[in-house]
């Protein structure tokens, strides 16, 4: 049994808005073990971004942590002050953002930025520069020494995302959060970037929290998957179990809707009818009830996230004795 690195336990996060509290995350529980890649899947607005900002504690001012804990190496991050958090960010926990066109300072050269983020190190500037060049080479940027003097706008999107990966991994973090790192890139680049990320991950043996709505990438890369819907975990488990034997209707529909899984040519791509419920005004019972074809009377009560097999959990009454009726 490998050591647990990140443990999210019963996390509840609200946004205070003029319309009342928006329950962005409810009872989120999952963990990430050392050196493991965990994928988080879900459609837009399901709380993925709130989850990331909660782990890093870079939340909007109207965020309220209602309950639960985010334990990193056994220490509850929610109890940490800003100073303690700052010492973790960029050293123990790193992040790659979604849009590589926006994540670099436009007026500083790549080299200046890569030297700057090593501000914790006491090394000489020339050494920091050498480290930066080495990292650029590791992510597959040719002629790294010369490219350090170039500015972000002189790089393509794929290059910039590689640079972002290089910057995130430079401190050899224990946990890397990848927030849809390939969504803004085209498909051929996506494969390259994912492969490079996977290689580096194996080399450094860091854990990765990989957020994506691209199921193919998740299936390829991740060891375990957490499926989120409307601010709650609906299913979590081993990547094989999730893709071959999904136990929650939402997971099943999500896989059915993935263009990579569609065998027949159709005029219209399949979708899940209905909309994500209003988080400020939550419906009672199962959160997916309104969009679920299999919903029954029992769904008026919230189903617990219960274990089905070893490490495989789902929140649906269908997996319980008596089904939904």
């Amino acid at each position, binding site marked *: 049994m490998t050591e647990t690195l990140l443990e999210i336990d019963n996390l509840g996060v609200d946004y205070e808005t003029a319309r009342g509290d928006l329950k962005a995350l409810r009872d989120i529980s999952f963990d990430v073990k050392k050196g493991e890649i965990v994928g988080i899947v879900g459609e837009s607005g399901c709380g993925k971004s709130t989850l990331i900002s909660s782990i890093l504690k870079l939340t909007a001012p109207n965020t309220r942590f209602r309950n639960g804990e985010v334990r990193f190496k056994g220490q509850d991050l929610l109890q940490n002050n800003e100073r303690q958090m*700052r010492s973790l960010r960029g050293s123990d926990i790193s992040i790659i953002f979604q849009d590589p066109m926006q994540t670099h300072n436009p007026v500083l050269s790549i080299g200046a930025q890569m030297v700057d*983020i090593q501000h914790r190190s006491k090394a000489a500037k020339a050494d920091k520069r050498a480290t930066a060049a080495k990292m650029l080479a590791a992510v597959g940027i040719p002629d790294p020494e010369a490219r350090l003097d170039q500015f972000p706008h002189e790089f393509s999107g794929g290059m910039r995302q590689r640079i972002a990966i290089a910057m995130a991994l430079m401190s050899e973090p224990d946990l890397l959060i990848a927030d849809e790192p390939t969504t803004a890139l085209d498909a051929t680049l996506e494969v390259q970037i994912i492969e490079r990320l996977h290689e580096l991950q194996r080399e450094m043996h860091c854990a990765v929290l990989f957020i994506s709505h691209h199921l193919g990438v998740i299936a390829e890369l991740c060891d375990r998957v957490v499926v989120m819907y409307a601010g709650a975990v609906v299913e979590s488990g081993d990547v094989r179990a999730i893709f071959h034997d999904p136990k929650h209707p939402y997971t099943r529909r999500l896989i059915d809707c993935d263009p990579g899984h569609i065998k027949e040519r159709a005029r219209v791509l399949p979708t899940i009818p209905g909309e994500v419920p209003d988080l400020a005004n939550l419906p009672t019972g199962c959160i997916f009830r309104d969009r679920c074809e299999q919903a029954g009377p029992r769904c008026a009560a919230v189903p617990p996230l219960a274990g089905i097999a070893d490490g495989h959990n789902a929140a649906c009454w269908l997996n319980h004795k008596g089904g939904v009726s």
Partner: protein
Amino acid sequence: MEKPRSELSLILRGVARDPLGLMGLIIVGTIIFCALFAVWLVPYDPIAMNIKDRLQGPSLNHLLGTDQLGRDTFSRVIMGGQVALKVALPAVFGAMAIGLTLGMIAGYGPKWLDNLLMLFFDTIRSFPTVMFALAVVALVGPSLETVVLVVMATSIPTYGRVARTQTLTLRNSEFILAERAMGASMTRILGVHMLPNIIGVLAVLAAMDIPTVIALEAGLSFLGLGVKPPTPSWGALLKDGYSLIRQTPWLVVGGGLPIILATLGFTFLGESLRDVVDPKLRKNR
């Protein structure tokens, strides 16, 4: 660090490529050159009187003639340029430095501090500059330092507001979030990442502000509230020329022309600088 120098030379090259910018560069360069080497350039002592040769027209001896006290106008014009820059540069760069600092704090700091600083800026801005200057000069007496301080105080809000707006736009940009996610402290974010993004805009603003300050100093000197006589200043030259216009027009020319040229020169330079520094046009460089 070699980087900023090459950046600067790139910007200067960009300005020189634009005809108006080149003109501005030449005018501003000439003014700065004359001001720096004024002591060696002037043919006569600008405050030495020579009653015998008073109110002369232009000649080879006196390029722009002499005033009512027989002082050489050309020498006074060159010395006046030095005075004008002595007022304009410290005032503008002082205001820029203070405004930049306060504006960045207002834009990045807590809301209450922002409100407080904005109230401070608005209070200063509500005074008309000339009136404020007149009041201060009436209180403490005319001097070069007073003019510098008054101009600096009244232009802090302009820089502060621009710096604040830029900071507010930047603070929610993704790359600043990325820096915070990588553990950068507030001082690092402001100093290393925001400052280079803001400074260009403010530098342009400063270049455009210098002629205003030169004109203001001239105006105060014209009213007799700027630099003390016999210190030569373009405004003082205008003032003398104004009362002697029937005897000789050359004092007005000597005082007025450099003000017009300096204003045009700095404005051309500022506008050209704005186009070159504009990040949207950067890639063309």
